[in-house]
């Protein structure tokens, strides 16, 4: 379509199509296991069958005698690894078993079938020890760490929260529970490693290959210049591919030992124990308020677990430092090290479980006050971040709530609930969302070519977010050129170094560097006269010192979710009928890919609310739900009408694009909105996720038999 004004339109903001879309729908996009290399072998890991102890002996003779088997790596013969700071990557280095599922051997064979078959013939003898894997709120080993995840202080206190809670005329004191959750990206964690002399090339499924290269250099004692790590297409990560995982270490070891390329694609059943999980949380919320709903005291205390290998503390109380004004507050994390697999990042670590608890408690408070829950949140809106005292760079929570209420017809919710028929109880719920603005320094380069096109290079990673597309849009605007003149290269550690796709910070971090490189290139071009030299002109940028400069502002995205559910009183099934969310996340740079990210986050929140749950098995010591038939991610049938909207937000205190992150906020608060809707429908308050039929039916039966059963 010819558009004479096209050149004057900005590329950012437009719904540009995904640059790699055609490859993905035709099946030609290559993921980490899909790089054909001559002589490539396959490896299959063997996992520890005890929760704690030592490997006494590994008998590999049967496995080694099987057809096609090239090597069996164990702690006795695997290459020794150098020091680095992630203990979960020190695989096959000693006889210690820190948790069930820890890797104890790796079989390398000509084919996948041979490797898998032989892995079953590796005989491991253990000296098992007693294990302790169950998180309880009063565990004797619990302690308050210095920091929770993300460098957040474990404890913050203002005023006299206990006294003011005790003195408040309206009080909520409730405990909420979120089970362990698994990321389960569709592409399992996979790496293909290939040595050429002392040069190493790795294709890996990762959210950031700069960090993978750095880690491999430390582990294998190589200069970074000798390592190339690519992640051209990545089948999702959701935090679990944020830093290197053991697959890349195993593949690199195996390739060195076998003397040929090796692919390690972790079997789905192994993922739960070796790539991290969202740690369970037990969260006690105490809200004290005056009669008009203003919070006077907010106490949010979190218990969670970590492994023996690392201290990872899910920062679930952190959103309570941001959301609502309250003169008195305490937010605290306690962690208990157990013989469990190591927890790690899962989409919106901290905010996702923490806002389930806070936003459920706010709903309980609205109930206790007889106030509309939308209005209660607006009453407690604040222009300053309560914990830091800093002004917000922008905060349009109230606008999100009002706009969502209008679009959802929140005012009609009582009428819709009364229209419940037969076995179905209908209810609506609301919850707020928030996610911090994060940004890291990055480098990038921009190159002007004599034919009038441009090449932008940056080691960003497109894990499905649309990073390629959005960065090309940012570049086109900074260069003042049509989008189709910009070529972009990402996903290779030989490109200018850049941070990972995580913390909803990718677009801000990479975009800033791309913007700066392209702006400099534009200046160079303006100063240049005559035709460009044959190799063009280029410019580089490094945002160290600017992107990571301290801001006098508190910077966060906000949002509001509205859910309508139908609860079947016979089957106990909760169905979400509608999920509608409104976000204020700065400038939206590509409405098409942004919508998909928001909806995707909301869908994962729906799963957190209704279907997703993992259980630490007290006897075996690892997760009972280890595949997709037992760990229920939402399917098509679970996801009906789902809508994401946003409001225009102009915030000059962010980055040159004016954007906030959007990858995670969709999951934050969704489960609370759905839980609050279930309460509206049934009159029963549920405080433990997920809201599965067994819990619903049990609670409905108890209420029927309670002496003074009351319906809302």
């Amino acid at each position, binding site marked *: 379509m010819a558009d004479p004004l096209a050149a004057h339109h900005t590329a950012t903001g437009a719904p540009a199509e995904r640059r790699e879309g055609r490859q993905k729908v035709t099946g030609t996009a290559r993921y980490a296991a899909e790089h054909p290399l001559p002589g490539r072998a396959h490896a299959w890991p063997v996992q520890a069958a005890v929760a704690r102890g030592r490997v006494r002996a590994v008998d590999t003779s049967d496995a080694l005698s099987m057809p096609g088997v090239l090597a069996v790596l164990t702690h006795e013969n695997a290459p020794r690894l150098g020091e680095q700071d992630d203990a979960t990557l020190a695989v096959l280095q000693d006889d210690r078993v820190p948790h069930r599922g820890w890797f104890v051997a790796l079989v390398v064979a000509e084919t996948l079938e041979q490797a898998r078959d032989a892995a079953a013939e590796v005989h491991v003898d253990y000296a098992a020890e007693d294990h302790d894997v169950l998180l309880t709120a009063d565990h004797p080993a619990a302690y308050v760490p210095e920091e929770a995840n993300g460098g957040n202080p474990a404890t913050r206190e203002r005023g006299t929260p206990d006294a003011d809670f005790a003195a408040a005329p309206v009080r909520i004191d409730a405990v909420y529970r979120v089970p362990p959750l698994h990321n389960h990206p*569709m592409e399992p964690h996979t790496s293909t490693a290939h040595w050429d002399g002392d040069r190493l090339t790795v294709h890996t499924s990762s959210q950031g290959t700069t960090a993978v290269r750095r880690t491999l250099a430390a582990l294998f004692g190589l200069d970074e210049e000798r390592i190339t790590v690519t992640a051209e297409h990545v089948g999702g990560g959701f935090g679990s591919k944020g830093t290197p995982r053991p697959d890349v270490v195993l593949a690199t070891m195996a390739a060195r030992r076998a003397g040929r390329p090796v692919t390690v694609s972790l079997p*789905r059943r192994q993922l739960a124990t070796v790539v991290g999980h969202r740690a369970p949380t037990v969260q006690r919320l105490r809200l004290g308020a005056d009669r008009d709903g203003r919070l006077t005291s907010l106490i949010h205390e979190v218990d969670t677990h970590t492994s023996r290998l690392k201290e990872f503390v899910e920062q679930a109380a952190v959103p309570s430092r941001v959301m609502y004004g309250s003169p008195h507050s305490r937010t605290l994390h306690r962690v208990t090290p157990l013989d469990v697999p190591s927890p790690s990042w899962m989409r919106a670590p901290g905010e996702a479980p923490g806002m389930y608890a806070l936003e459920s408690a706010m709903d309980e408070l609205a109930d206790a006050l007889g106030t509309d829950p939308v209005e209660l949140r607006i009453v407690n809106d604040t222009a300053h971040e309560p914990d830091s005292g800093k002004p917000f760079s922008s905060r349009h929570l109230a606008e999100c709530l009002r706009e969502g209420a209008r679009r959802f017809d929140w005012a009609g919710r009582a009428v819709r609930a009364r229209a419940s028929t037969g076995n179905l109880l209908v209810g609506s719920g609301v919850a707020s969302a928030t996610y911090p603005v994060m940004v890291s320094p990055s480098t990038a380069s921009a190159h002007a070519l004599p034919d009038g096109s441009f090449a932008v290079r940056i080691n960003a990673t497109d894990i499905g977010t649309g990073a390629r597309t959005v960065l090309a849009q940012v570049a086109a605007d900074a260069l003042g050129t049509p989008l189709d003149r910009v070529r972009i290269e990402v996903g290779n550690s030989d490109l200018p170094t850049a941070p990972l796709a995580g913390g909803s910070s990718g677009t801000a971090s990479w975009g800033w560097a791309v913007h700066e490189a392209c702006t400099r290139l534009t200046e160079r071009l303006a100063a240049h006269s005559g035709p460009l030299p044959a190799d063009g002109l280029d410019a580089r940028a490094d945002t160290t010192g600017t992107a990571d400069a301290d801001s006098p502002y508190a910077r966060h995205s906000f949002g509001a979710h509205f859910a309508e559910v139908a609860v079947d009183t016979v089957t106990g099934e909760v169905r979400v009928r509608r999920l509608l969310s409104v976000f204020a996340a700065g400038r939206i740079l590509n409405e098409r890919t942004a919508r998909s990210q928001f909806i995707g986050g909301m869908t994962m929140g729906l799963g957190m609310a209704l279907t997703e749950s993992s259980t630490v098995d007290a006897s075996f010591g690892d997760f009972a739900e280890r595949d997709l*038939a037992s760990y229920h991610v939402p399917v098509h049938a679970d996801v009906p009408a789902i809508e994401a909207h946003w409001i225009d937000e102009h915030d000059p205190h962010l980055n040159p694009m004016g954007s906030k992150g959007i990858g995670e906020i969709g999951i934050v608060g969704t489960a609370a909105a759905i839980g609050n809707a279930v309460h509206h429908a049934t009159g029963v308050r549920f405080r433990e996720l997920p809201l599965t039929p067994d819990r619903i039916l049990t609670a409905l039966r108890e209420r029927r038999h309670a002496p003074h059963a009351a319906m809302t």
Partner: protein
Amino acid sequence: MGSRHHTRDDAATAAADRHHSQVTLHVNGTPRTLTLDHRRALLDVLREDLDLTGAKKGCDHGQCGACTVLVDGRRVNSCLQLAVALDGSEVVTVEGLGDGGMHPLQQAFLDRDAFQCGYCTPGQICSALGAIDEARAGHPSHVTDPGTPSGRPMPLGREEIRERLSGNLCRCGAYPHIVDAVEDVIR
């Protein structure tokens, strides 16, 4: 040492012969004759032997649908199909849909932004094509009104599409856009 190796290799070769068969598959219209390990799933034949990596391995266990392809016109989880049992079958993968260009459903996935990471996408597309044919052939689903006459084409509304595609997981949560794309091609 050397002789021991010989013995083992000979034994392995003999064992391998008992465990391999020659199989012909017609893949995207091209006959492919291969000697296959009896344990090899169709998915691994496509990915490892034929370099058709469009079919994805998500769970290797029939639980995610990422490996969905069409065998003799019907959608299957190729990770659960032992290739040796498919001698003579017609296999169509995502690479074989377009007939040179792009299939209208592939174009609809692009138009609707019906994916993010793209890993489940080939399976979603093959599964949707299989589901459309099943509905056309009059196969009911769990959500089909029991009063619907059987054996006649079933209309595919959004609820039917969702139900029939529920064996194809998408962790990025592109479900509503996938349903939009499928609706585009059945209109």
